[in-house]
């Protein structure tokens, strides 16, 4: 999967998770840009990402995911 495909998959996860069909992610999207994306949403979001991409993230990795670009990089390095 290339970065663009990962980004598209992530967008889909976000749209489903936040129940907002209009969400379009880019590498610079951060929690500031999406209203419901707070630390409490992070638990379910990470679980959803792990399931979709069949991977496991460590506690340290989870803590660093502040923007979508970093998520893409991390997922790409693990798949």
């Amino acid at each position, binding site marked *: 999967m290339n970065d663009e495909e990962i980004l598209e998959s992530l967008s889909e996860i976000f749209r*489903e*998770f*936040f*129940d907002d069909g209009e969400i379009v992610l880019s590498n610079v999207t951060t929690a500031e840009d999406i209203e*419901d994306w707070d*630390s*409490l*949403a*992070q*638990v*379910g979001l*990470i*679980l*959803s990402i792990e*399931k979709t991409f069949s991977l*496991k*993230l*460590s*506690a340290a990795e*989870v*803590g660093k995911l502040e923007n979508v670009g970093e998520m893409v990089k991390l997922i790409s390095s693990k798949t």
Partner: protein
Amino acid sequence: MNINFPIDTAKYIFKERRFLKEAQKVVTNRDIKIKFIGGYTQNSTRNWLEIFLRNHKINCKIDESDWGPFFQFIADTSILESKPDMIVIFILPQDFYSLKRGNSPITDLNLFLKQLENFVSACKEKNIFVSISLLDSDFINFPSSDNPSFNLLRVKINGFLSMLINENKNIKLFSLSNICAGFDHDPISNYRDWYAFGQPYSLSASFFLANHLINLIRGRLGMQSKALIVDLDNTLWGGVIGDDGLEGIQLGDETAEGRIFKDIQSYIFNLKKRGVFLAIASKNEIEIAKEGFLSKSSILKLSDFTKYEINWGIKSDSIKRISKYLNIGLDSLVFLDDNPTEREEVRIACPDVLVLSVTNDPITFLQALRFVDPFCVDSLLTSEDLLRNEGFLSKANEEELIENSDSYEKFLAKLDVRVEINELNDVSFERTLQLNNKTNQFNFTTLRLTADDLNKNMHDKNKINLTYSASDQFSDYGQIGIVFLERKSQFLVINNWIMSCRVFKKTIEHFVLQEIIKVAIEHNLNRLQIKYNPNKKNKILIEFLEENNFKKIKNEKIESCNEQVWEILDLSEQEIKTFVKENS
């Protein structure tokens, strides 16, 4: 929200936010305030509880304490001043990890437990319902040598909690591993989610916990179903009795399927012992179907069922007849059937009936009964609930008596109904609250009083709160009614009057009216008024008011509700016909 079994929790937990948004659109008709204490990150539990509550038309405000162990928040009882209706206290192994080195946890523990006891008794004073987690399995198993083992700590805390509930009916304990048992997922969070998010429970466990809490709340509010209607073949036993015969059906310890059906029967039998009515709706030849109960492994007997409809007719018709016979509304019935076509037919014809969404795997019957918990088995049981079943069993005898009497009046005279009236007191408080919450038909205003309102009523000098219980030749019905009276200058006003539908048509209400008039006369009040808010379910009361010479004197439309006042103008000329005698 209709949950399908087996539960695919992932399907729900990934859509938590969507369910929450949907639930927030539901129009609610009552409010509840809940406070979570301890538990670290319980955001998911909070959200699911809100979803479940709103789906039951209950608006809620759920506050979480700050992040940390429970004992940080219970030393001070000032948080009770915001008057929550319910408090949930989370006691977790992690709470004890933070105890400082050199500070023996057992000394601290005694202090915490003392504080917990004080906190809980402050809750009791304010009539706040408390739900506390038992200390479940450990998380890290620290290899400490100087401290007592975690298991010892656990036994001590759980033992202490079990003593607390002995003295206080307002406390319920839960164990997360119990709640999740049998459902294919781990109740405890993994290390990653604990360290990264402070989540002590897994996300699916939060979903299950919230479901447990809503079931407790439903029970407290009297929102439990009242009767279970079951199919027979492949529902109470494996196989078809008409084809496989008594020897061929699966029931009992010999096979896996037989063991499942045995436990299903056991579960249902226990429901009956708790006061739930059982009935059968089965497409079968009656004589053949009855054979199934003759199996030596059958825990249930045909006589455990108050009514059986075994015929080749449509099931929804059978269910309607059962509803009529038991005098229980369709919205208080639960239907269990392995056949999806039958379930769908009932769902369409009787949308108010709760149809459990199971598969043909009988394990899902157990899961659905436990998860949906239609009868709120973890909630309080009153002795009246237990008596109720006995009352109905005698209904058959009663019907015989009617047939042998020339008229209904003669029947009533023979029935020898006795009523005892008392002032509301601490003993009848709980049952009164329950009647107030769940009675719809003989309920003049359907304004639901809270425990707090009821308490105030009890201490108001101008108010007279009369409870009454009834018995007849066949059964003791326990407390079945409550009248809220108030003195206002020369008036005696009935603010509300509630009676259980189980005792209709016995002229008990006429007897009570006669007693109310006596109260008015004793207090030198010459006029009697009653408040009445008519709605779809309490229409029968108009007839009662009219036949007893009440005249409508006021009718105001407030929002969508009609508020009426009716009055008997001349109490001295009032003649009431009743066959009830005072119980002395």
